């Protein structure tokens, strides 16, 4: 299993176009967080602090997550579109094992990328917030940082699982991009559909990122931060199992 994991890591790092999709996440999340912090700080100048600085901190992840999602799609979708999946199955015909190794390699990469992104985003936002900033040890900050790492990692795995299920990058992106774009724009806050929309994977993950307002009739959620991540984890697991089912059941060729 370690040999297959090493081989999957080599596969990830040796396709430059795939690796590059992570760059926007790494750069834009902190950059936008800094600007968001600045703009909050300016508009609140001289007024009492009655807002949640962590909202300004992690709002940029709703854009940063797009790069992570595209990475999650391409890392498996390109194997199908290029035919490399055939070589992969010839080298490792135990399909479940191959898939598990790939998912583990993605988790390891994503935990690293997400940790760097979350920490950089946090400090960039605090620099922008100036007088309104919070420290690393402040109430809720460690929880939100851990939440951000898990959130980004799960968005990536959701994308991977969906792509493996559909065996197509395009089909997966057609579902994911609108979901994440609209989600970032507040899909889960629309009263008419909130009963359902708040349980979509990205919406559920937003509580721990402080992108919702607890107990607020419109911007609140019916569940807490960790329950939210749990809901997101269930979606992710379902997508990954869908991918496993497709891979084990179907012929390798189209």
């Amino acid at each position, binding site marked *: 299993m370690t040999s297959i994991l090493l*081989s999957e890591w080599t596969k990830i790092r040796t*396709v430059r176009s795939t690796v590059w999709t992570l760059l926007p996440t790494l750069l834009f999340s902190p950059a936008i967080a800094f600007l968001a912090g600045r703009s909050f700080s300016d508009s609140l100048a001289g007024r009492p602090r009655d807002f949640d600085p962590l909202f300004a901190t992690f709002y940029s992840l709703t854009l940063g997550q797009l790069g992570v999602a595209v990475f999650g799609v391409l890392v498996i979708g390109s194997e199908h579109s290029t035919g490399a999946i055939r070589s992969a199955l*010839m080298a490792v*015909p135990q399909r479940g094992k191959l898939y598990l190794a790939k998912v583990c390699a993605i988790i390891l990469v994503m935990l690293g990328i997400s940790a760097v992104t979350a920490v950089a985003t946090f400090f960039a936002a605090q620099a922008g917030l100036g007088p309104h900033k919070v420290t690393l040890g402040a109430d809720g900050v460690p929880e939100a940082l851990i939440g951000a790492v898990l959130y980004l990692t799960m968005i990536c795995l959701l994308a991977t699982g969906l792509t493996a299920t559909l065996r197509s990058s395009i089909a997966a992106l057609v579902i994911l991009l609108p979901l994440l774009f609209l989600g970032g724009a507040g899909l889960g806050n629309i009263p008419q559909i909130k009963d359902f929309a708040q349980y979509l994977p990205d919406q559920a993950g937003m509580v721990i990122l402080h992108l919702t307002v607890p107990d607020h009739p419109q911007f609140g959620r019916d569940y807490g931060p960790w329950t939210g991540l749990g809901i997101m984890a269930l979606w992710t697991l379902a997508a990954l199992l869908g991918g496993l089912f497709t891979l084990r059941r179907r*012929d*390798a060729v189209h």
Partner: protein
Amino acid sequence: MIDIRHLTKRYGRTLAVDDLSFTVKPGHVTAFLGPNGAGKSTTMRLMLGLDWPTHGEALIDGERYERLRHPLHRVGAMLEARSMHGGRTGYHHLLWMAQSNRLPKARVNRVVEMVGLQDAAHRRVSGYSLGMTQRLGIAAALLGDPPVLLLDEPVNGLDPEGIVWIRHLLKDLAAEGRTVFVSSHFMAETALTAQHLIVIGRGRLLADTTVAELAGQAGSLEEAFIRLTAGGPR
């Protein structure tokens, strides 16, 4: 040794492989012939566990491919269909394959030399010519120094020098006691390389014989092949 037993594959209403049974023995090159659409590539994919058979089985040294642990040590294969990522270098393609089967890096360098890809190995596969892609595919098949080789149309896209090279390579590999199974639709090339023949048409076995015997009946292998495949299944 490859053992094909009642192998059948149905895609929807099409019967691509129809109750195919034959054995491929070590020590000589066995050619796998048939017109386009006869089911050669499907049979190869079934042998490699890429597609699931509807009935029957393909055994390699008594085992189904998907049961093999570190299969590159046991079977080397090259498919006709493209099976590598264009964004990766040839070297990295071979490297991940080697790692997955616990083969040393030295083995990657060795097969790169064997197929003459030293100059191109560190370039991305998307820039390779068809001939270079074929050589990379053959390098991947040779990675684990396997006793069984399955090559689907290896001559495709090779220049005359490459064709002579592969003819010698296949004969040498067989002479070392390996099982070498090569699909082709080039009769002249087959007559020069192979000793044994498996001919299929519309997914069914038409002949399981030697090159000398089949060519002897009709004067030339080409003539024999055309007669055989025009007549449909016996």
